[in-house]
């Protein structure tokens, strides 16, 4: 019973940590066909933005959090103008963009090292307490992360399903040419998607760095895990990405608990390798669509 609770608790907090990042990754893939390798760096930007504002300005933590969303907004737009805008028509876009975003990520991370040094920092947006569940403590921070991830998912679903711009995003994702024939300005929609992803990534970055120490490279592992989650969910499938975040969180916890912490991450990677070999488009995946 204790084992179950331990795995449940740590899997839940892991899942909550990765859910928002996975959604950001999945959204961009589904609608632009872009595997955004700079997502890890965007998580770091969010974390550092909140940290810097609260640390160097007389700003309360919640304002720091909100302002970091603004910084994420700008980061998404910059990424669009530096890469996507010039590349999306190229036939090899889907692979070139991976390389381009890796390059951008390296630039951002090293800039963060220059500005903030590589030493770990502590996120001000942090709740230390927890409640006792049997013999296991459920941290409030995990519950907050879970709540915010849920809110992000709900707002995004509402936006995509209920607004005109959201429907246009889905239309572009399903058939770019047909959407253009309806008069949808594809470049504007891409910019919109990048900006939304930037905001979600920033939020996710703040949540993440509240749980693990913040360094410029803090986004590497979450990025890889978000990949795994999205591949298993089928890239572009948002609800499946959300659910898969938790399933994978529990899987990782269970492996760590049973076989030792060093096998948690490799086990996930092996899982994704198996999934890719077995189902080239992910377990719930089809080719490339955004679904909500």
């Amino acid at each position, binding site marked *: 019973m204790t084992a179950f609770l331990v795995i449940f608790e740590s899997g839940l907090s892991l899942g909550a940590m990765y859910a928002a990042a996975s959604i950001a990754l999945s959204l961009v893939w589904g609608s632009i066909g872009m595997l955004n390798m700079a997502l890890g760096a965007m998580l770091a930007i969010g974390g550092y933005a909140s940290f810097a504002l609260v640390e160097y300005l007389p700003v309360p933590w919640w304002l720091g959090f909100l302002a970091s969303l603004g910084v994420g907004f700008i980061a998404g737009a910059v990424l669009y103008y530096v890469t996507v805008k010039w590349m999306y028509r190229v*036939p090899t876009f889907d692979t070139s963009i991976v390389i381009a975003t890796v390059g951008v990520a390296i630039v951002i991370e090293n800039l963060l090292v220059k500005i903030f040094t590589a030493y770990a920092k502590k996120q001000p947006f942090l709740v230390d307490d927890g409640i006792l569940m049997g013999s296991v403590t459920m941290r409030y921070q995990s519950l907050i992360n879970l709540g915010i991830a849920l809110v992000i998912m709900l707002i995004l679903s509402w936006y995509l399903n209920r607004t*005109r711009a959201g*429907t*246009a995003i*889905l*239309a572009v994702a*399903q*058939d770019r*040419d*047909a*959407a*253009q*024939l*309806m*008069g*949808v*300005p*594809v*470049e504007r929609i891409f910019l919109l998607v990048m900006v939304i992803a930037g905001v979600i990534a920033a939020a996710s970055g703040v949540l993440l760095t509240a749980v693990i120490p913040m360094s410029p490279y803090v986004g590497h592992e979450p990025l890889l895990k978000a990949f795994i989650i999205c591949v298993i969910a089928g890239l572009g499938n948002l609800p499946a990405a959300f659910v898969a975040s938790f399933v994978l969180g529990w899987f990782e916890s269970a492996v760590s608990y049973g076989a030792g912490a060093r096998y948690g991450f490799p086990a996930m990677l092996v899982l994704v390798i198996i999934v890719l070999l077995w189902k080239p488009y992910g377990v719930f995946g089809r080719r490339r*669509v955004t*679904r909500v």
Partner: protein
Amino acid sequence: MATTRLEVDGLTAGYHGQPVLRDLSLHVNDGGAVGIIGPNGHGKTTLLRAISSLIPIMGGDIRLDGASIKGVRADRVVQQGVVHIPQGDLIFTELTVLKNLTMGAYLAPKSEIGSRLKGVFEIFPRLEERQGQMASTLSGGERRMLALGRGLMSAGRIMLIDEPSLGLAPIVVDQIYDVIRDLKAEGRTILIVEENISRIVDFADYVYLVDHGEFVWEGEPDELMRHEKILETYLGG
């Protein structure tokens, strides 16, 4: 003397730097109905895609009301009143019928959507019944109705229609042509690609024949019917 709405002038266009269309010229007058015929894979769809700016113009020019659309983004061309109803099933399969239709009115003011929707539902009551259904679950005929209905939602002045009768039962085709005829009667300008020779002869007032990306014949429909050699070569007699 009718004014020229759409003018294609020495157009060369294609994919990945390889021309499919070579030095093509045509014009459509205001309120006119022009048909394009020709064998499969000879560039009919490519021509419509070039007109709606989905593919870049490699040479020559395309003019709407005298203004060149060379290098103009596709959505801007739509803004100028061009409606392209694509061949096959370029509907949004993962959206509902209703959302597909509202996407058709993407550029229209919000206040107009309701009345246009009503108009489309009057023409295609089937779509009204199925409005909550995912477009992917529609039958072939229903999809074509949806594509046409989506085009009607945008209320453009110039309609580019690509093979509306392809693979449909004659009754459905009749119904679809009734709608297209009404559009013409309303004074819209129509450029239509059609393989079904009798349909095009009934409907169009001028016809171009494409072969290997070039026009090899043009003229009035009844002239075409008298032209045995063409009928034999291209249209199986």
